[in-house]
Structures are given as C-alpha cells and as structure tokens.
C-alpha cells in the first residue's frame, strides 16, 4: 500500500551557513520532495535560523512559494515591541493572505539562542490568537529545556503545539509532557527515532499525535519513511502519521 506524505518540517531558501552539498533553493527542495514521494510540505524560510528579521523572512517565504500548492507556509514569529499588540494583527493579516497554516515560535536550529520568552507575559497576545484561530505552533525542541515546553502548554492549554527535533533519547521528558498536555504533538523530524518506535509511541499515546517530518533540506527523508513503513502498526496508523494528522490540524485553522 502507498501513502500520501505530508512533511511538517521543511525549510526553503538560502541561509548563511549552508554547506554546499545541502539543497537550498525552492526548485532543489521540491526535487527532493518528488524524489521521496512527498506530496506536500509545511515550509519555513531557512533564513530564520540565522535569527534574521522574521517579518522579512515571512515575506520572502511567500515570494518563494509563489502559489505552489504543494508548499504550505509556516510563518515565523514576528514580534514588534513597538506596537501595542506586539505585531499580532499585522502578522495575522499577512498569514491570512498567504494561507499560512502554522507559526514557528522559536527558530529551527537556533533554539539555544532563544531571544524571547515563551511565557504569557511576552507572547500572550500571539498565542491566545493562535489558540483562538486553531493555528498550530511549531517549536524546535533540541536544546530547549523541557520546562519551557511544559510551561508553554500550561499557560496556553488550547494551543496546538508541534514539537520538532526531539532527540531519540527524549522520551524521559516527552512522555510525561504528552500525558499532561493533550494538545501536544510530535514531529518525527529530524531525529525522533527511538528504537522500538513508532510502535511504542502508538501503544502509549495512540497514532494521532505523531506527525511525519523530515528536516529537509538538511536531512533526507528516506530514513523517516522506512521508520514508519517497516513499523508493525496498522495502515490506518501509518496513514495518520504520514499525512492525516497534519492535514487534520491544518484544516482546522480559521484565520
């Protein structure tokens, strides 16, 4: 049986520290999607990893996507402390126009350089709006203290949070978080590959909270595909992980 694949963790465009063997342009990334049979991808601008101006990154993201229906925009948090609402209205307007379906609230590959708090005092307007719009937020977990994740979920219980880049050794903090916070989801990308998974995850948490992700362009999707395809789980579970779970989340968005 073949499955549609919807990638939750994919970057497009150039960034400063790119290695020459890593694809970067939209065409190169789309060619990778084709090669691996990935039908759609939730994409962010690679420039954001250098903590560049988020609003400009969002603008160039839309330009790069250029109405390609396979690429779904995930904007980056564009805080504006000089506006009373911290930049929320402006960004949500742009997201609505661009048909964005998710929001990164820290930068991929830069979580150790968190430049803002994830607490209500800093992000309250943003995350209340995301909760109301059912807009999922993406959170890059590698290097992020698990307490930050717990606090975020406690302060915003209706917020859908998709964790990316959870280490294969992260179950010690991930499982209690998943038990405590029903709106927490986990992307496979780029290294959530504990041995015995995804069977173990499905046994403990069901199959509706695990989401396919690759980490393109830095990380190739092949291993993630076989991680699911060789798993001893039902076709329903595989389909859910490969695409249905993410599609369901994104279809609920009401910007």
């Amino acid at each position, binding site marked *: 049986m073949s499955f549609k694949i919807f990638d939750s963790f994919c970057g497009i465009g150039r960034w400063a520290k790119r290695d020459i*063997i890593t694809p970067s342009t939209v065409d190169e990334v789309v060619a990778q999607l084709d090669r691996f*049979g990935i039908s759609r991808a939730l994409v962010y601008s690679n420039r954001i990893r250098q903590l560049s101006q988020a609003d400009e990154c969002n603008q160039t993201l839309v330009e790069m996507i250029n109405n390609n229906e396979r690429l779904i925009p995930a904007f980056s948090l564009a805080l504006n402390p000089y506006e009373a609402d911290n930049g929320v209205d402006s960004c949500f307007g742009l997201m609505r126009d661009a048909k964005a379906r998710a929001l990164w609230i820290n930068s991929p590959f830069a979580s150790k350089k968190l430049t803002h708090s994830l607490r209500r005092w800093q992000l309250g307007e943003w995350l209340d709006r995301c909760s109301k719009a059912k807009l999922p937020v993406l959170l890059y977990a590698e290097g992020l203290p698990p307490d930050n994740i717990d606090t975020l979920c406690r302060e915003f219980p209706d917020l859908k949070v998709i964790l990316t880049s959870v280490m294969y050794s992260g179950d010690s903090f991930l499982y209690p978080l998943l038990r405590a916070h029903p709106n927490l989801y986990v992307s496979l990308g780029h290294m959530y*590959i504990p041995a015995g998974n995804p069977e173990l995850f499905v046994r403990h948490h069901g199959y509706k909270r695990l989401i396919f992700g690759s980490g393109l362009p830095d990380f190739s*999707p092949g291993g993630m595909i*076989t991680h699911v*395809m060789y798993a001893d789980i039902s076709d329903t579970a595989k389909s859910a992980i490969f695409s249905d779970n993410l599609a369901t989340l994104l279809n609920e968005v009401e910007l």
Partner: protein
Amino acid sequence: MSYTLKEMGQRGVPITTFPVIDAHAHFDFNENNEAGIADRLRRMDRTGIAWTIVSTGLSLGAEFKRGNDRAAALVELHPDRFGAYCHVSGNYPDIAPAEIERCFASGLFKGLKLYQTDVDFDDPRFDGIWEVVRKLRIPVLAHTWGDNLTNFDKAARTCPGIPFLAGHAGSAFAYRKYIDAALRTPNLYLDLSYSREHTNMIETMVTAVGANRVVWGSDVATFSMEHQIGKVLFADLTDDVKKQILYSNSAEIFNLKFADFTN
C-alpha cells in the same frame, strides 16, 4: 515481482535479494531476555537484516568481561543471526589485551569495539591492544564523533590491511574529516550509523572514497534500525552500490559467507 531497494523501503517489504549485515549494533539490559531477543529478531526479519554484530553497554561502562560474556551468550543462542564485538578500553591497558585474547579464543567474536574515552587511539596506552589486533588480525570498530576522530586513522595505519571502521562517520556534518582520513588511510572504512541523515552525505562519501569502504550499521538499540536502513535504501546510488554498503563490504570484513544465512 522484483523491486528496487528504494521500492522495498517505500513499500516496507523486507530486503530479500541479499543478506543485510548490520556492522554496528548494541545489545543491552532491557533486551537481554526472551521477549527482548524475540522482538529484535522480528524487527530484523521485517527489514531483511540477516546478521548483526553487537557489543554491550556493560562493556562500554568498563565491565568488560561481563559485557563481552553477554554478547557471547547472544551469539550462542542465535549463531546464525548475531556476531559479537569484544569491547575493551585503552583506559585499562593492563587488562585489555588479555580480555581480547580470551574473547577470541572462544570463537564467538568477530571484531573489536572501542569507545572514545578521552584517550587518543594512538596513545601508548593502546599499544598492547594494537599488538593483539595485528597478531589476530581483528577488524576494529571505534566510536568516533564529529571533528574528532581521536587519531583513529593514525592507529589504523599502524595495522595495515586490517579493517578499521570509523563509527558514526559524518556525524555533526563533519563528513570532510572522515573523507580526508579515509583517503590517507587505505584500511579505514566509514560506518554510517548516525541519528541524522544529512542530505547527500552518503553519496558524497561514496564518490570520494569509493563504495567498497562505506559500511552500514544501525547503532540499534540506541535508535531505530528501520530508520537507519532507509538512509541507504533511498540514497541516490545504484542498487549494486547499496548492496556493497549493506552486505558485501561487511561480509568481507567479518569473513562471512552467504551460505551462512537463511532468509
């Protein structure tokens, strides 16, 4: 119906065209029971991994004899599915050479496993180990990481003609270090076990050093063997090259015969 290796990965069907060899794996406490071993074998069968060579966490933690005995016991239970690495350390030069000799006298061990323990592999503390390696002509797998091969390649050059496998080649995206080390060390092999799957990295390594010096290992049960095999199945390489990486290179290194396997 015959599939390409990529199609086998896409369909989740076991690789049956040749016996896949996992050259870098572990076997530990929570699997060391009937159910754990059965689960490991089931997973191997679902992917088509015919034979796996293991070391244990006990040995990594310097309990060499107990750890190596645990690996040996697994081989005794399933000699057609598992081989064992004898794991020692240069931090214990007084006992390491004798432990290697003890292990290999049993006939159950196929290679030597070393970990990075803040001692460079060409440190005099390893001299006794390399002496035994040369005497018994034992393949060596060492944990290496990122920019720091801890002179594993230098140690390899003191044992010409004996395969030295640099574990986690390309880790932290330092693939050029590994390629450079392999180009100056004819008996250095690049072991692919690594949690990340950097785009185009395997292809780059194969182009630079040749397919005959790239070897597949999963590092299970640190992480998913099913993920690790996909890195090769989907690589932009011919099926002949993938077969070398998944089977024939390791078959030569560990002197394994096809007829030994039943798939």
